[in-house]
């Protein structure tokens, strides 16, 4: 795998053009602590106090679980981003060298090797030793502090909780909508035993009678209002009079 490596003086050694940045220990503050919590968010707040002796510009905090405790990192995010942006895109994942501590010692470029002494990662010059390169590491197992993925993002429990909440809300909403639909359907069919087809046919029949009778009555009343000797009216033929 290709990587960039940032050294203390800020210059970057590019092994291959690729997609990863490893930050040198001189650019961040590290400490391991056992906090009385399993929450990453709480641990992050505690880490802020725990790393109180760090330089004032190291305001950004990253925390991830490691063994029984937490690995805590403090860094100057703006400075790191500026350094990296000079050589690669902003979307390139960043890793602290400390995050590779379980896989050390290893070679990080032509002139430097990384090793762990008393739990702290260090880099040193040694061109003679034969060590595995960072290319051989499995980066997927690591949290990525700068790109929002990995353990530093929303925890799985929170995500699962949100999924359950969304499911319950959706189920509740749909149940209410279904109830409304059922109520409307039952209200729509209550009140009469006849089907819509029957009612339409009867309305048509009665409307025809109603219309004929109104017409006949109007004709009879009109004829009766004038002086007549005889008047003959029927639904079919209408009125004739003398």
């Amino acid at each position, binding site marked *: 795998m290709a990587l960039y490596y940032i050294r203390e003086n800020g210059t970057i050694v590019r092994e291959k053009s690729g997609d990863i940045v490893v930050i040198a220990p001189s650019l961040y503050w590290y400490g391991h602590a056992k906090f009385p919590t399993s929450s990453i968010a709480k641990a992050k707040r505690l880490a802020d106090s725990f790393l109180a002796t760090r330089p004032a510009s190291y305001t950004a905090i990253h925390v991830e679980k490691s063994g029984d405790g937490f690995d805590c990192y403090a860094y100057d995010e703006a400075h790191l981003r500026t350094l990296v942006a000079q050589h690669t895109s902003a979307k390139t994942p960043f890793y602290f060298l400390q995050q590779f501590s379980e896989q050390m010692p290893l070679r990080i470029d032509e002139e430097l090797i990384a090793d762990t002494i008393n739990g702290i990662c260090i880099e040193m010059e040694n061109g003679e030793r034969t060590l595995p390169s960072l290319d051989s590491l499995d980066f997927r197992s690591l949290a990525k502090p700068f790109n929002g*993925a990995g353990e530093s*993002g*929303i925890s*799985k429990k929170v*995500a*699962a909780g*949100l*999924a359950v909440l*969304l*499911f319950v809300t*959706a189920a509740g*909403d*749909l149940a209410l*909508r*279904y109830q*409304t*639909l059922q109520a*409307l*359907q039952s*209200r*729509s069919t209550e*009140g*009469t035993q006849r089907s*819509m087809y029957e*009612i*339409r046919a*009867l*309305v048509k029949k*009665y*409307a025809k*009678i*109603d219309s004929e*009778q109104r017409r*006949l*009555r109007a004709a*009879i*009343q009109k004829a*009766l209002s004038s002086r*007549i*000797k*005889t*008047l*003959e*009216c*029927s*639904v079919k033929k209408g009125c004739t009079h003398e």
Partner: protein
Amino acid sequence: MRIYAILFGVLLLLWGSAALYMEKRVERVQQEYLERAELTGRYEALRRLWSQEAKREARRQMEKMLAIYGITPNATKRGSLKSYTFSVDAKRADTILGKLLGSNLTITSFTARRSGEGRLEVRLEIEL
């Protein structure tokens, strides 16, 4: 995390689709209900006037009314039609004929003829 994003997406999609479907169904059922209510209202109004029961009641009322005015009609029945022939005093004719025409009898034919003694001979044929 990707799996949760997919899960959220699928849930939202399902929720949205089901809600939209139910919304449309509710709209359609409401519209059907309104149409049915309008038709049923019209049906009830017409049924009160022209149903068999209404016709029977109207005929009964007519016979009662004629009896009150002391008129004994000559009634003949032919199939589903019934004819009433009677004579009314010309002075009362307007009132009696007005009441007959104002009722919901199903009149099939109506004949009126003035006689010499200031009376009106009326023949009314109604549907049973």
